């Protein structure tokens, strides 16, 4: 009887601390580390690895590989990580078109995918999947926040501009979803276009009271420089992507005063964020970016799930992920039914701190915001 009691107590103890002897977790990261746009991938990787190093756990293994921003290569690496390395979790992809190439077949093969950046609408609505988690945002979110903010900032005649590709269309649709004023113009430019003289002339002629742009990467740098060199003063708004830490230095003073929307900033006041910003600067010698914060959160989400579930019990592990029991650097964070974030989205302004350009939060664009596609998801 006594013996029986001891064994059952032992059993109970084992149940309470499942990570004792739980299987190790293997994470594959496919991200863009070479060529144009590699700054984003480097930031996601550095943020992710910072959290992994801080946790210092022997039961978590991460392998990183470069997709060079080519969909076919990303698919090839995903095959390798799933079939050869037998990873439990894939993560890391930056671009929507690469995510659309890799994610559907990954989640159908029973591997979990955690997105640290891209959130195409096709994966948020009917195409949602129990193995797919988005830790960043749904693609429309930041644009919706800016559209909502434009109302409160009394902008009534916006000129809106984005490259002619699906993410660009989603961006302007997102802005228009909550924006109530008129449109002074709506232009789709060629993807990768670097000269905006023709568009700036149209903006000047349109009499707009504000301009909303979604031009990621080098396109945004080029637009901002040309806009300010042309002596334009109509206020610019945009999502964080063209005004984030990695890119601000290259835009220079042309970015000063621009308002942009982001779910994170380095001055969000919580303990986790303070540690993150200080550790990141100490480890890499530069200020963290939005992308680094997303990589960091993704790693911490995985670590939190490892604390409460065994990876071999996938149902339990998924439930642990979905409960999001980790201290996000952006403050409150939870998943909606479609496993995309419900979170606050802030409005920031580009300011000069000493001789460094950076962002400061000036308001909240949307509180506890969930994406528009969640209702179509059957999860």
């Amino acid at each position, binding site marked *: 009887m006594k013996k029986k009691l001891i064994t059952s107590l032992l059993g109970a103890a084992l149940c309470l601390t499942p990570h004792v002897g739980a299987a190790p977790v293997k994470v594959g990261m496919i991200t863009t*580390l070479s060529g*144009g746009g*590699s*700054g984003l991938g*480097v930031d996601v990787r550095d943020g992710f690895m910072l959290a992994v190093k801080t946790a210092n756990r022997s039961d978590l293994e991460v392998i990183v590989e470069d997709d060079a921003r080519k969909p076919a290569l990303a698919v090839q690496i995903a095959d390798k990580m799933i079939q050869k390395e037998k990873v439990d979790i894939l993560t890391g992809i930056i671009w929507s078109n690469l995510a659309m190439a890799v994610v559907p077949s990954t989640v159908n093969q029973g591997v979990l995918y955690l997105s640290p950046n891209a959130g195409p609408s096709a994966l948020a609505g009917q195409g949602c999947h129990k193995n797919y988690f988005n830790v960043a945002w749904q693609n429309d979110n930041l644009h919706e926040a800016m559209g909502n903010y434009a109302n409160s900032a009394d902008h009534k005649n916006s000129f809106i501009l984005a490259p002619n590709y699906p993410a660009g269309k989603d961006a302007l649709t997102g802005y228009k979803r909550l924006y109530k004023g008129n449109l002074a113009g709506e232009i789709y430019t060629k993807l990768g276009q670097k000269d905006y003289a023709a568009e700036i*002339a149209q903006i000047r*002629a349109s009499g707009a009271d504000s301009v909303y742009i979604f031009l990621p*990467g*080098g396109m945004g740098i080029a637009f901002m420089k*040309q806009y300010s060199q042309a002596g334009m003063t109509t206020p610019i708004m945009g999502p964080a992507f063209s005004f984030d830490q990695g890119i601000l230095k290259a835009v220079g003073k042309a970015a000063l005063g621009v308002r942009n929307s982001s779910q994170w900033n380095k001055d969000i006041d919580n303990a986790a964020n303070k540690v993150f910003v200080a550790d990141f600067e100490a480890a890499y010698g530069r200020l963290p970016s939005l992308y680094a914060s997303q990589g960091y959160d993704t790693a911490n989400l995985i670590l939190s799930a490892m604390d409460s579930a065994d990876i071999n019990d996938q149902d339990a592990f998924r439930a642990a992920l979905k409960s999001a029991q980790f201290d996000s650097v952006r403050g409150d964070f939870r998943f909606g039914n479609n496993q995309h974030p419900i979170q606050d989205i802030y409005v920031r302004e580009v300011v000069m701190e000493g001789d460094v350009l950076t962002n400061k939060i000036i308001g909240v664009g949307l509180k506890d915001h969930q994406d528009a596609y969640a209702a179509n998801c059957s999860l």
Partner: protein
Amino acid sequence: MDVILLLEQLLNGLQLGIMLFLIAAGLTLIFGVMGLINLAHGSLYMIGAFACAAVATWSGSFWLGLMASLTFAAAAGALIEVVIMRRLYHREHLDQVLATFALILICSEGTRWLFGSFPLYLDVPDIFYGAVNLFGVLQYSRYRLFIIVIGLFTALCIYLLINKTRIGMRIRAGAADRQMTAALGINISLLYTLVFALGAALAGFSGALVGSIQSVEVGMGEPVLILAFVVVVIGGIGSIRGALVGALLVGMVDTLGRGYLPQILQLLLDPVFANTLGAALSSIAIYLLMIVILVFKPKGLFPAHG
């Protein structure tokens, strides 16, 4: 239709054309003299922009940066010519394509190794900020006017160099008949190194000028490379005059297409569909232009002699 806006767009087309000419001039020079397909032209453009950004940031002077772009690109060009290109002149075009494609990979990743993955800062000097008033009705960016002037000046310099100087005579002779020129006692391999370095310097210079209003980042040279090829082929390979005309044509078609195609289509079609179709068509307009020209003039607008 708004006349002032049309005027400004015409000026923008001219400016884009001049910018394209700066980029394409070096390519057509190398093409014409040595018969070399240099896919790495975009990489030299990138090297110039990075050299300018690095030196301008370090010294605080944009002008020093411009000098550096010329120097570094010319040096890189000379090095590439001596070590690699020299062995490829008598080979097939395909070998040149493969070798210069390899050079793109080496230059891009080498630059990233040196400078990191993040875009670099490069801005125009303060005197170029803002707009000047043209004809009393039109505000136009100072820097873009500066580019127009520099571009026309460069075109003139190249014209004088090729047609009025001794070295230009040798270059023309080398392009026409390599063996005969060598037989006359001219050091043809030195001449080729010089031409390649000159072409590289032009590429680097344009990289610095254009990079300062666009963006300085790894991979910036590749879209530019294709545009430069389009310009060179429209104009006629090896012809500087052709490159100028081709560049202006491409600049005009691209700018006016972007500005007006969607609006014109809206007169005929449903607005949403017209917008989509207009954006799609204007992004392929220059390729359509090139195809139409080549169908009627298979050797470009100004076929070079020989």
